[in-house]
């Protein structure tokens, strides 16, 4: 059974008890992303404090993978510089697009390494990246807009 590889305990924990969920004020930019094939959606807000990611808040509906990966995202990027956060984003995207061939670095991705099994299911990669794409877009808006 390969299912356990995909649905790691860490993922199910984040799904059942998401971190940082709920939209908060104040924020600098908001991004709405939707997965057109399944209708999953996320609205994500970013507040920057200079070069620091001061807060990430979000709301949305979707499968365990999309919800859990957004929860992990907030753990990984809040309190870090935008550069560090984007480094993690790049590492996560590389992991997810690697079709299961990329060995994740736990120091960089922490709980994010639990998604390594998801990378073997191409149909679910978009789910895992939904919140991360919203984050990337929101930061770009925040930096471009002010």
């Amino acid at each position, binding site marked *: 059974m*390969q299912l356990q590889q995909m649905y790691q305990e860490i993922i199910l924990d984040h799904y059942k008890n998401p971190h940082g969920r709920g939209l908060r004020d104040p924020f600098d930019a908001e991004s709405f992303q939707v997965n057109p094939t*399944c209708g999953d959606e996320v609205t994500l807000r970013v507040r920057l404090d200079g070069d620091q990611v001061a807060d990430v808040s979000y709301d949305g*509906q*979707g499968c*365990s993978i999309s919800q859990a990966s957004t929860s992990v995202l907030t753990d990984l990027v809040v309190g870090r510089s935008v550069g560090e956060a984007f480094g993690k984003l790049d590492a996560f995207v590389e992991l997810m697009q690697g079709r299961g061939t990329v060995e994740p670095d736990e120091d960089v991705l922490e709980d994010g390494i639990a998604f390594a099994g998801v990378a073997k299911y191409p149909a679910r990669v978009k*789910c895992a990246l939904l919140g991360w794409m919203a984050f990337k877009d929101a930061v770009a808006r925040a930096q471009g807009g002010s």
Partner: protein
Amino acid sequence: MTAVTAPLDVDALRADFPILGRTVRDGKRLVYLDSGATSQHPVQVIEAERAFLTEHNAAVHRGAHQLAEEATDAYEHARARIAEFVGASANELVFTKNATEGINLVAYAMGNASTAGPESARFKLGPGDEIVITEMEHHANLVPWQQLAQRTGATLRWLGVTDEGRLDLSNVDELVNSRTKVLAFTHQSNVLGTVNPVEPLVARARSVGALVVLDACQSVPHSAVDFRALGIDFAVFSSHKMLGPYGLGVLYGRHELLAAMPPFLTGGSMIEMVEMTRTTFAPPPQRFEAGTPMTSQAVALGAAVDYLSVVGMDRIAAHEHQLTVAALDGLAGIEGIRVLGPVDGHARGGAVAFVVDGIHPHDVGQVLDDQGVAVRVGHHCAWPLHRRLGVPASVRASFYLYNDLADVDAFLAAVRETRRFFGVA
């Protein structure tokens, strides 16, 4: 019409579909319950396409050599066979890329009619005119009409859906009125399985002079359908949902209407005469088949129609009904399941969509897949319908002639396993 029908010999049928013999996800028997999206192909259809390509291949309706003659005959013979299958004449069937293109063809032709001469006046649309669809449409029978309304200034209106997944006909006389130019609706919902009542809708449309467009994508593959008897004006269906190849759809139009309708795509093969500054068009169906057509595909769809006819559409419908009722009964016995659409077998086909309390459809589909059960998850190209029913997405199992009760059992066991796996059982 209650012909005594012997049950299908599914084991014998399955032997015609090589793909059903393969395994998935580490040796699991493939339980293919996604025929609503696309069907599998029997060797007879694959072989027919191969035989055309290896023995008769040439460009149709062009050239005077023997192969061109044979290819043209094969292509037109297929058209005649397919027409007979749906109760139409050969000159009423247009081959398109898929059903979606067929609907767009009608919608764009109607748009083009607005700038064409008086011969196409009955297709003209503008401000004050109305297009009526339903809330249960596949995007293919929704977006083209919505966009046509936006381009022409016409108004889009729609029949609602009841909580149990039937069309709400309570205000049909108000919605379909003297301003209505087109009434477009699905014969059978690809999500709910609901079979819509064509007769009263056609009667209402007739009484106000509106054209009726029927999306027959989910009915023609699964039951005996006679377009002329239904009294509709246009209909579409897709080859790949009825054992045929990809890249081919069929548009039916009453001949008198096709003869008056301006073209959608223009170019080679659809002309009568071309000068540098003007063109006159060929009669239908050629007028609507610009460019080199899908030839081997049409021939193979002819073979698919032969295959279905030999098995018998009434037997296929009865067989699917049995599977559908078994699936509905089985789901009713599992806690936390909500079936979208009619929960009994009355006037419904073999699409069973549902949600599982506490588990996202995507996650349900993943566990089913792990058990070898292939279903569709998402909104199934019917996003407004899902919104209406208050769910973001659903899981859909859909049946066809090659499914059996073992497939239904495997499906139900996998649904139970899903609840156990996610700890909601």
